């Protein structure tokens, strides 16, 4: 089966810094993958490259066999690590915006989740707290029926109670053939929903494995292994 995401010798440099250095990896369809690594290991850079927000310095990255472009953007749902929505728009206006541009967006799902998290659709983004803004962003991103979800730090800014709800939302919202890539360093929180892990270290792949393998063969949790691999 063709992988949904593939990197071949992918390299990205910033002035005076190498963010990714010859990364080769694949993400198969229907998997939930943890993209794990310490700060500055290249997680966000990789995800931004997959969204076409950055241009590779070398190598290539393919989404469903094609370089990022209008076609790949139809099937990729991306949650950036920052707040990127227009402050002056209301939640309702943003739902309409997403529904307008993404054919796979379900308004029903979005309003359902908003209600569950007690976010009123009439409020302007400006008036919401940072955590609530992040929840709105995640709801918008997860209300799509995409083939690939790229979630950059989806639970970084929200409280532990909402974290559980969000993780549940992620696993209950994606369909069998869809893949989810979650970048985070809050490993113990996401560990239970992951199928595979990719460890990034200073712009290179330090380890790829299924979570089952880590548990069975090494007899460790992902969190323990992470602490071992990235011991300071």
């Amino acid at each position, binding site marked *: 089966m063709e992988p949904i995401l593939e990197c071949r010798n992918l390299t990205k440099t910033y002035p005076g810094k190498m963010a990714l250095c010859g990364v080769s990896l694949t993400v198969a369809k229907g998997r939930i993958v943890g993209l794990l690594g310490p700060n500055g290991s290249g997680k966000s850079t990789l995800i931004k490259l997959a969204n076409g927000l950055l241009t590779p310095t070398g190598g290539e990255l393919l989404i469903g066999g094609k370089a990022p472009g209008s076609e790949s*953007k*139809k099937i990729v749902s*991306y949650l*950036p690590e920052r*707040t990127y929505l*227009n402050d*002056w728009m209301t939640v309702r206006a943003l739902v309409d*915006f997403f529904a307008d*541009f993404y054919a796979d967006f379900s308004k029903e799902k979005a309003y359902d989740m908003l209600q569950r998290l007690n976010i009123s659709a009439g409020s302007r983004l400006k008036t919401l707290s940072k955590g609530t803004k992040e929840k709105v962003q995640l709801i918008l991103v997860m209300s799509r029926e995409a083939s690939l979800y790229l979630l950059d730090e989806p639970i970084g800014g929200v409280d532990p109670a909402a974290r559980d709800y969000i993780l549940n939302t992620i696993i209950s919202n994606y369909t069998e053939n869809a893949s989810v890539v979650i970048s985070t360093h809050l490993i113990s929180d996401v560990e239970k929903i992951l199928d595979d892990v990719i460890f990034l270290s200073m712009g290179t792949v330090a380890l790829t494995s299924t979570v089952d393998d880590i548990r069975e063969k090494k007899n460790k949790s992902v969190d323990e292994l992470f602490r071992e691999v990235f011991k300071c």
Partner: protein
Amino acid sequence: MLRKLLKYEFQATGRIFLPLYLLLFLFTVMNKAFLSMNSGNIGASGLQIPTFLAMTAYVCIVVAIVVVTLVATIQRFYKNLLTDEGYLMFTLPVSVHSHIFSKLLVASVWTLLSTIFSILSVFILAASPDFMNTLSRMIQSFLQAFGQFGAPMYLITGEAVVLVLVTLAASILNIYVSIALGHLVKKHRVAGALGAYFLIGLVEQFLFSIFMTAAKNGEWFRSFENWDHTVLIESGLAALILVTAALGAIYYFGTYYILKNKLNLE
């Protein structure tokens, strides 16, 4: 998709421009009222201070419209596409052409509206029996010219309108390509954009003066001496339109190339 982009672009900008236009309208009416009340003897009427304040506010609004139109043209392109908001815009399943075109079209519309409304408002304030007479005489002689010269006059007017529109689009694209070039400078993007803008201006000036010198020395201008004046104006305008359109096309494809192949959002 272009239609949807246009819709949101108008929404995002309309919330700034429409209140400004409304203010312009209100203060035009207010000043007109004061002017007709005072009609000559301001000192005597005791309305000196309100008249002065209303006029000051009016001038401020006109200046604000000019400034906001320029700033919005820059900000909607720079902020919406190349800062955090670009994370949203560039992950939409929309082509780069649609992005540039929607911004260009909306910026052009607001620039035209701002110009038309400002001029109209000054006309309303200036309107007096004398002024109206002069205006109607001007319009009459204009219409007369149409009757006298016929087709060439229509052609020249049409060309003038096209030239204004093409120049407007090219100026906006000049700003866009400068911002896009600035984006290539990794750390000082705003400075890069400013530098690019002045450099483009400098290069154009340079090429233009080379062309003028060559044309003068080569006696090229002499060859037009026997041309009919109407034909000369017609061809001159056509040439200006073509040159401006060519510049606009260069700016457009430069912007497109950078956004398509060199995008690196922070």
